[in-house]
């Protein structure tokens, strides 16, 4: 309870602030509306309610966003083009595919790097440099470019997600696979263990905590990659497309709803990786 109470307090404060901000930010437009309708001296409580019920508010009130999410997921057929569940699914599948590829690539590169001096020296600087490149910015172009050669749908988006998520995995795994201390490596040497045995019995288990820490980061940015990649292909669907069409049509409520769904997805994905981590930890006897 002592951990939940502060969080709830802050959340409540944010909520109150949000409603207040909604009144304040939507007030100018509401005043215009009321003037047009010839309404004068509207009492504050009903004025506030008016600002919380606009069609295209500058800042929608939380309950409007929640209502939109409900309508756009539960209220519609899953296959409907307006269903957020449908678009969320498109984004989710690209995210998961990219994440799986990215993790595999990251682990593979890390294994190559720790076993071979030359690949360490030639790859590592470029892997780090590759992340200072705002690759997300090229995402639309990669999608269009791959589309030009007939590669459309999930794969181009997944490639962007992969590019983003492999990096934390490489860096984390290189650190993790190198984490065994000298004394533990010496021990394996006194057993005349093969490098295969050193890898599976020492390096790999020692790297597990690092792997999960990187995977949590990786899956979150994998989702970001998928959303941004969707911005370029309005026909393909996905949460990114909902953001884009919402911004073209001034549908703020739709934007916020898509944003909330994306946030929810990110939270669920990170939580899933987190619970996988706990399962592995328990099996590896990590102190609770």
């Amino acid at each position, binding site marked *: 309870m002592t951990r939940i109470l502060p969080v709830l307090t802050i959340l409540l404060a944010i909520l109150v602030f949000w409603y207040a901000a909604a009144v304040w930010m939507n007030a100018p437009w509401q005043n215009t509306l009321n003037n047009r309708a010839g309404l004068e001296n509207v009492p504050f409580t009903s004025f506030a309610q008016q600002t919380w019920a606009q069609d295209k508010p500058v800042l929608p009130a939380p309950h409007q966003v929640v209502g939109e999410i409900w309508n756009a997921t539960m209220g519609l057929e899953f296959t409907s083009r307006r269903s957020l569940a449908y678009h969320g699914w498109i984004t989710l599948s690209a995210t998961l595919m990219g994440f799986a590829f990215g993790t595999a690539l990251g682990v593979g590169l890390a294994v190559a790097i720790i076993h071979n001096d030359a690949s360490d020296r030639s790859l590592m600087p470029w892997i780090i440099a590759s992340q200072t490149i705002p690759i997300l910015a090229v995402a639309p172009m990669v999608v269009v470019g791959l589309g030009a050669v007939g590669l459309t749908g999930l794969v181009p988006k997944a490639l962007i997600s992969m590019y983003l998520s492999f990096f934390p995995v490489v860096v984390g795994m290189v650190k993790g696979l190198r984490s065994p201390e000298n004394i533990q490596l010496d021990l394996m040497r006194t057993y*005349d263990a093969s490098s295969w045995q050193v890898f599976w019995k020492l390096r790999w288990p020692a790297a597990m905590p690092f792997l999960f820490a990187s995977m949590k980061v990786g899956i979150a940015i994998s989702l970001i990659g998928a959303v941004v990649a969707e911005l370029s292909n309005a026909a393909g669907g996905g949460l990114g497309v909902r953001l884009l069409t919402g911004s073209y049509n001034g549908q703020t409520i739709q934007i916020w709803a898509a944003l909330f769904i994306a946030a929810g997805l990110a939270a669920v994905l990170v939580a899933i990786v987190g619970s996988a981590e706990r399962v592995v930890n328990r099996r590896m006897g990590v102190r609770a």
Partner: protein
Amino acid sequence: MTAVVSAEHLGLTFPTGDGDIVALSDVNLTIEKGDFVSFIGPSGCGKTTFLRTIADLEQPTSGTLTINGMSAEQAREARAYGYVFQAPALYPWRTIEKNVALPLEIMGYSQAQQAERIARTLELVNLSGFEKKYPWQLSGGMQQRASIARALAFDADLLLMDEPFGALDEIVRDHLNSELLKLWDRTQKTICFVTHSIPEAVYLSTKIVVMSPRPGRVTDIIESSLPRERPLDIRETPEFLEIAARVRDGLRAGHSYDGDLV
């Protein structure tokens, strides 16, 4: 008697950025089967380096070294020794029994053999009943006992111990020392033991090798006249104190205190 370890004119030099460091210089030593040999000396005297050289963890730059008549590398490949490090170095993700099983898995023992050996060696170090515990659930002394069990689990007749009890408090250390003596007596292993404690060296050993630094070398080899059977209170006997005094003299002779001031 056959020589388990035999070193002749052994030297080891580490090249570093500011000149070479002579870690070992002209070390001559023979260790017989069943010996309990302690290496004692101040830090930097090469006692750990010598142990690591026997284990093929360091390569000598001059002289010859044979273990059971083989080169150090061949001896390592033949799994001729068990090594106990300063720290327990148990794998935190393995239970105690799985930690003891580690070398057995690597050396390809069958499941049945593994189970039998785990039970036997844990019994030997008085850790029966702790098989399913994880290392962090045990005290420091118990962890170090588990690491000794791990070194005993396979059939190596030579046990190399590098200050295994250095990080433990004195009471636990006394207890483990007497346990180690009993174990040595029961198993008839040859033990090389690095320490910087004079009472520990005298209490445990049949042979005490006194070393001194800059360059690391052997300054004295003292054969102990104490009986194999040693209760803890043997440490108050005049005989014990006499040997201890000899070791202390040896350490003093080999150690130039002036050098430390530079």
